[in-house]
Each structure stands twice: as structure tokens, then as C-alpha cells.
């Protein structure tokens, strides 16, 4: 048998830290034939990116290979000199990094950065040739007006466009292998789909082998024939994608399959909360059991009680931003256009749309962080439009936000206890002792140990931080919580836990949620009603079942189709 294109044997990678050496990858074996596609799946910290970047010796910081071998095209890569490795990178192994926002140098034009790659890999020489090839590369990557945009800078490109540039650079020299490290995690689902489709057709055409790294099992299965599941630096399961999804062997893979919202939502959807479905879920011990039950319970309750009063009423709201043009004139940009909807007390409404659709602007106006251009928002019947600062301050006792980034939204210099207790301080609720008790109570409510009180944000994981943010939001016993992409930054398993917590809290405290997200898969498990937004306009508003089961608008259908994994038959 001939040697595969890439052969990894017993790979060990370690990081030096202040507390000694941390083993990040242990005994990993991988085979990849020419022209094949392999997906490595796992949560953050599982060692999937570390494994992939070690192939071209781009390990971050103090990471280094401590054992094993990486053979590529008949050569051992671990013992190459710096110069030899520089020749392999780009020419033979292309690399497409994760975050399109930070992976292009902001001070050089797009053209410069592509031309640089073309020249370094010896594809073309001479100024004209290089430029010609660079334009070709960008066109192949799907930038139609490449010649015009060569002189532009990264900040003038959208996320999707930048990702195309990165893909173009990765494939510029027609490499035998392409390492794609979460190439679309930062993008909207619809954009993600277009770009991955394009990447797939490109690599197929060129016969490039692809290592595809992702945390989304549904996405992995859809894009690769073979899957490798990594957990804590080890491969826990490997094999054909469909087989792993339908019949996962390792307990971790089972949990992953169960938690992947893209898959879970479909399961709920197809079974429509039938009891048979719930039994299967209990047997496999999945985490979304409670979510499904809670959703079903809520639906029942609603049917019994009839309509409830509205907690939030958005009435014909428009938001216009003035955007400065180069010449000094201001141009009106309508971010939200005559939008109306209402949220009943104790229910969850999700606002869905791509980035730029105006969904976050709605949330900011509701929270009083942005003025309303015209129309009105009423919270508990109280109009927001004419509210002064005092009124706004009062309103915030009723309404609290939880934001997307659990790293950016907690002050790193404050202890967890202070962070959670701050709203109580600001609104002068109780004395210091009762505040302390309340914080302990809140920690309990979000299932964090009391010992967290004196600890600091940097000691916590992403999921724990988001729990802290939720506890802070709950401190004033609000009736309404605005969740702006509150789970988008979390790993699937953690995401499922936080969603479950939110569902439990809603039942317990009769909370009303306004859930802003671009992730339709998450919507399915948490929301009662859905508003779909496109370019500032409300295109569809209905119950979640209606939207998922019978989308009226073409745009909604497109969003639904873009949920990764929607084409895979599940074994459940």
C-alpha cells in the first residue's frame, strides 16, 4: 500500500507554562490520503487546532512537539530546518486561519498581502505577473471585482469577504494539503454556507486534501467524509462521519452529538416534542432533555392560560444613524425600519438575522442605550421614547442585559461577588449584609459554588463567566432579560448547559426573554416566538413551530437551509 499524503504517528505536543509543562496533545494518529477531506472536531482546548498547526510548525507561544512523527509526502516534517519549513508553508501546505477579522494585517492593502503570498511561493515573478496572478487568486476565491478592490484595506471588507481573501491566499500556490482552522466560525450561517460550498468546489477541482477543524459536529459531518473527535488532547473516536453521527461509541461523542444545537434542533423539529423522542433522550442521558420538556410544558401552560399581557411592545420603531462620508456630508442609514412586535410576559422571543440586519440595534434601543428615531417601545405599558435619565434608571430595575462576550463584559479587576452585587449597590438595594446574602443566593441560582465570591473573572471558564453575567442580570429581580448573542461564544456542551439554566430560571422566576441571535439552531430549543429580520425590516414573525415547520418567506427558508448538518440523516 502506498503511503498516505499525511501520516501522523504518536504525536505529543506540550506547552511550557508558569506551573510547569502542560501536555496539550497526547499520542495522536492520523492518516489522510491525497484529495481527501478530514474533519477534526472538539471543544476549545481539545487540542484540535494545536494538532493541525503543529503540522506546519506554527504552534503558538511556548508550544513544541515533544514526540512522534509527522510525515508529509514522503518527508519528515518535525525535523525540518526553519528555511525548509518556510518552503513547505504556502507552497505545499496551505493554511486558512480562523478569525477573518484579525488574520489580515490592517496596515497593508489586500492586494499587497495577496501579492506577497504569490511572490513568496514563487508562483509568479515580475510586478505585472504577480499582480495578474493575485487578481486571479482573489477571483477564484469568489471576489468578483478583485481588480477594483486590490487597493482597499482589510477594514473596508466584510467578514465574509476577508475570509474569501484568506482562502484565496491559502490556495494561491495550489498546495497539496489545506489546513482550514474553523474557517467560518466567525461568520453568519448563510455566508458560512456560501463560503464552504465554494471552498469545497475549489479543493475538489484542484484535488487538494483538506483538514477541516471545527467545533460544530453537524458542520463537520456535512463537509467531510471522515471525522476525528478529539477530547483533552486525545482522539476519542475516528471513522466515517455518518457512522459516528448515527452510532457514536465514546460517551463524549454521544454527548457532543446530543448537544450540537444544529442537530438537536432538527431532532426536536422532526419529532415535534413527541414523547417517544423524550424517552430516547433520557436513555442516552442527553442534556437537552429538560429543554425539550420545558418547551413542551410551556406550550401546554400557554394553551391553558390563554394570552398573557405584553411585557414589551415595539411599535413602528425606526432607527436612523447618520454616517459621515469622506466629503463631510452625513448620509442617513436606516438600521431599523418601522418594526413592530410584542413579547408576552413569561415567554421568549428570538430576534434572528444576519449581522447588519439591525437586531442588536433593537436590543440597544430597548435597553435605552440608543435613542429611538421614531415610533415607540413600551415596557410594561410604560413608554420609552420620552423617558429622562431618572426614568431610564428606574426602568433598568425591570430590565437587564446579558451580552455576547463573557470575557469583555466582566471587569477583570473586580471579584465575582462585587460584579454580581454591583447593580444592588448602584440601585441602593438593602445594606451590605443583605446584598452579600443576595449575591450568595444568586450564585446558587446559576449553579456556581459560593467559593466563587472572592474569585476573579480570569480564573473562570467561558461558561462560568456567562453564568456570572446572568447572575448579575438577575440581581435586581428584573422581569425582562435581554440576551444579546448570549451563548454564541460558548462551546456546544457549555452552550447547552447555559440554555438549560436559562430555561429553568424562566420557569422559576417567570422571566421574559428577548433573545438576539444569528444562530437559528439555538432559537429552536429556547424560543416561543421568532422575529426574522433582514436589513432592518421585520420579514417574518410567528411562533417557533410555524417558522421552522412552515417558513413563509424565502429569506427565512434560506436561513434554515444554512444550518449546518441539515442534510444529514440522523440515527435517532
Amino acid at each position, binding site marked *: 500500500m502506498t503511503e498516505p499524503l499525511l501520516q501522523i504517528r504518536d504525536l505529543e505536543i506540550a506547552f511550557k507554562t508558569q506551573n510547569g509543562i502542560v501536555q496539550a496533545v497526547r499520542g495522536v494518529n492520523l492518516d489522510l490520503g491525497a484529495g481527501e477531506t478530514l474533519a477534526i472536531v472538539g471543544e476549545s482546548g481539545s487540542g484540535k487546532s494545536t494538532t493541525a498547526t503543529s503540522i506546519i510548525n506554527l504552534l503558538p507561544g511556548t508550544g513544541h512537539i515533544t514526540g512522534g512523527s509527522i510525515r508529509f509526502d514522503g518527508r519528515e516534517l518535525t525535523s525540518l530546518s526553519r528555511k525548509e519549513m*518556510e518552503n513547505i508553508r504556502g507552497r505545499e501546505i*496551505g493554511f486558512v*486561519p*480562523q478569525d477573518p477579522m484579525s*488574520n489580515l494585517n490592517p496596515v497593508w492593502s489586500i492586494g499587497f498581502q495577496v501579492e506577497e503570498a504569490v511572490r*513568496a511561493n514563487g508562483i509568479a515573478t515580475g510586478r505585472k505577473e504577480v499582480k495578474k496572478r493575485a487578481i486571479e487568486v482573489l477571483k477564484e476565491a469568489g471576489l468578483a471585482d478583485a481588480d477594483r478592490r486590490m487597493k482597499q*484595506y482589510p477594514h473596508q471588507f466584510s467578514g465574509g469577504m476577508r475570509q474569501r481573501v484568506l482562502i484565496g491566499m*491559502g490556495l494561491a500556490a495550489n498546495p497539496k494539503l489545506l489546513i482550514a482552522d474553523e474557517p467560518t466560525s466567525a461568520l453568519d450561517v448563510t455566508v458560512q454556507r456560501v463560503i464552504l460550498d465554494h471552498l469545497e468546489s475549489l479543493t475538489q477541482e484542484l484535488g487538494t486534501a483538506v483538514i477541516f477543524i471545527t467545533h460544530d459536529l453537524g458542520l463537520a459531518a456535512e463537509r467531510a467524509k471522515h471525522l476525528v473527535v478529539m477530547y483533552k488532547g486525545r482522539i476519542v473516536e475516528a471513522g466515517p462521519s455518518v457512522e459516528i453521527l448515527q452510532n457514536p461509541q465514546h460517551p463524549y461523542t454521544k454527548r457532543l452529538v446530543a448537544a450540537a444545537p444544529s442537530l438537536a434542533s432538527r431532532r426536536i423539529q422532526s419529532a415535534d416534542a413527541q414523547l417517544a423522542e423524550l424517552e430516547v433522550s433520557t436513555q442516552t442521558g442527553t442534556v437537552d432533555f429538560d429543554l425539550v420538556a420545558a418547551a413542551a410544558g410551556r406550550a401546554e401552560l400557554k394553551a391553558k392560560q390563554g394570552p398573557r399581557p405584553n411585557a414589551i411592545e415595539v411599535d413602528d420603531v425606526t432607527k436612523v444613524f447618520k454616517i459621515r462620508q469622506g466629503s463631510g456630508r452625513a448620509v442617513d442609514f436606516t438600521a431599523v425600519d418601522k418594526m413592530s412586535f410584542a413579547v408576552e410576559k413569561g415567554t421568549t422571543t428570538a430576534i434572528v438575522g444576519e449581522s447588519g440586519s439591525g437586531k442588536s440595534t433593537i436590543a440597544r434601543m430597548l435597553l435605552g442605550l440608543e435613542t429611538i428615531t421614531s415610533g415607540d417601545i413600551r415596557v410594561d405599558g410604560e413608554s420609552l421614547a420620552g423617558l429622562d435619565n431618572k426614568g431610564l434608571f428606574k426602568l433598568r430595575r425591570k430590565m437587564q442585559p446579558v451580552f455576547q462576550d463573557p470575557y469583555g463584559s466582566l471587569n477583570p479587576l473586580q471579584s465575582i461577588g462585587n460584579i454580581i452585587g454591583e447593580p444592588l449597590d448602584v440601585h441602593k438595594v438593602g445594606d451590605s449584609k443583605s446584598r452579600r446574602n443576595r449575591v450568595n443566593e444568586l450564585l446558587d441560582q446559576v449553579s456556581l459554588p459560593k467559593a466563587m465570591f472572592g474569585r476573579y473573572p480570569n480564573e473562570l471558564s467561558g461558561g462560568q463567566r456567562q453564568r456570572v453575567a446572568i447572575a448579575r442580570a438577575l440581581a435586581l429581580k428584573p422581569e425582562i432579560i435581554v440576551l444579546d448573542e448570549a451563548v454564541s461564544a460558548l462551546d456546544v456542551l457549555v452552550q447547552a448547559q447555559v440554555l438549560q439554566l436559562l430555561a429553568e430560571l424562566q420557569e422559576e422566576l417567570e422571566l421574559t426573554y428577548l433573545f438576539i441571535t444569528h444562530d437559528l439552531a439555538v432559537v429552536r430549543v429556547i424560543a416561543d416566538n421568532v422575529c426574522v429580520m433582514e436589513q432592518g425590516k421585520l420579514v417574518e414573525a410567528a411562533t417557533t413551530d410555524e417558522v421552522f415547520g412552515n417558513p413563509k418567506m424565502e429569506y427565512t427558508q434560506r436561513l434554515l437551509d444554512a444550518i449546518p448538518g441539515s442534510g444529514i440523516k440522523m440515527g435517532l
Partner: protein
Amino acid sequence: MARYIFFRLLQAIPVLLGTTLLIYFMVFAMPGDPILALFGDKTPTPAQLEALREQYHLNEPFIMQYLRFLGGIFVGDLGTTYSGQPVISVLQSTFPVTLRLALIALILETVFGIGLGLLSGLRKGGASDNIILAFSLLLISLPIFVIAFVLQYLLTFQTSIFRPTVGEGAPWGDLILPGIVLATASVAQIIRLTRTSVIETMGQDFVRTAYGKGLSRGRVIPVHILRNSLIPVVTYIGTDLGVMMVGATVTEGIFNVPGVGRTLFQAIKQSEGPTVVSFVTVMVLLYLILNLLIDLLYAVLDPRIRYVK
């Protein structure tokens, strides 16, 4: 862009009026009679005093003196010093000297500061990094007059590589030693600033991507690491040039450089209103122009910064 520059220059007008008024008032309010001081131990007759006061318009109210000074600016008359020299000729003889001195210091601190800072940042934690850091710490801790006297002693009196003081006309060669002294304090700051900035840039995703697309280290370092690290350094160098133009009083004093710092110091001691204010006006103007140049340089270094107004 032209619009932006125009508005920035327009802003300079109230700043200049404000500073000159303030400085003029401060000089006016200084205790002691400057005319009496001119006579030293001798006692002038009232008629003599009156004549001198008349000549320098010291008997007019403050605001009149100030307006007279302002009016003079427009016809190129900045008044005369108490020793009878026109202020404008004092300006003409001192500013070029200080400018030359500042230029020497600037070149030295830029070359050595950025060079050593880059080396230190790239070898973070290594032996050369530690040596450079220790060296920069030493430079920061030593007061400038200590460095000046030590270098003057070693390089002039002991080895006579340089002349100990600056000669007539302040030729370039004589200004090298004071230039080195003037650069020492800033060079340490620039080393540290560059080092921190380089380390930060090295950790950026786009640097990894640059390696990932097959670029050699010899290209990534200048093109993707150094250039992105320069913005904070440019800010520092720009303001530092401003500080040096305002005159390095201590350094100029030690090496007897006939520059701005020394002259201004003497003028302040003698309460020479027109001289002090003329110097300060030129300095403020220089400062404003330098700041504008730095701001414009930002836009060159970072295309995300664009000035519209």
C-alpha cells in the same frame, strides 16, 4: 485632507493668542523692577529711569504693552532685548543651533531606540533582551547632568575625542557629544516602547498567517511586525522632538551651547517680556506643527485612520 490641515492650522490661532497673553502677563507680574536691575549697584537718576521705561514702554498698562507686542509681530518687529539687540536676531541665532542639536539627538535615539527595542522584543526572555533591558533601566535611572558630566570627563578631558564645550557658531561636530547626552534619556524610553509593541504585534494572528502563507522571517519582521509596532513609538518621538526644541536647558548649560534653552533661561531671569514671549510663541508654533505632522504620519502608518472634516 487639505481641509483637515486648514482647520488644524485655524485652531492654532486661539492657542497662540492664549499662550502669549498668559506668558506676557506672567512676565509682567514677576516681582522686581527689571530696569533697576539693569543698573546693578549704581543708582540711576529718575530722569534716566523714566527715559528707559519710555523706551521699553514699561510705563504703559499691561494690556497696552501686550497689544503693542502683538501689533509688532505683524510688521516683523518683536522688540529689543535690554542689551539693545533686536529679539528677532536673537531668535535667528539660537533656534538653528537648538534645531541642529535636536536633530542629532533625534537620529541617535531613533536608530538605537528602535533597533535595540526590536532586537530585544524579538528575543524576548533571551540573554540579549535582558542585557538591553538592564542597560535601558540604567539610562533611565541616571539624571541627565550625571551622564553629561561623566561623558564630558571621559570623552573630552581624558581622551580628547570631543571638545568639552561648543565653539563659536556651534558647528555640527561640537554638537555630537551634547546630542548623545540629550538622546540618552529618550533612547531608553524608545527601547522599552518598541519592545512592548513588538511583543504585542508578534502575538497577533496576522503574523502567524504571514508565516502560514510561506513568507520568510526576513520579510515578516520588517513588513508585518515592525511597521505595525511603530505607531506608539512615532507618537513618543514626535513629542520628544517638541521637548528638545523647547531647549535642553541643562545640557545646553553644561556644554555651553548657545541655543534656545540657555538664552530663554537668561531672559526669564531678567524679566525681558518681549524676548520670553517671542521665544514661547515660536515654541508653541513649533509644537503645534509637530503635533499636526505626527497626526498626519498616523494616517500614513495606519490606513484605518483617515481624517475627514
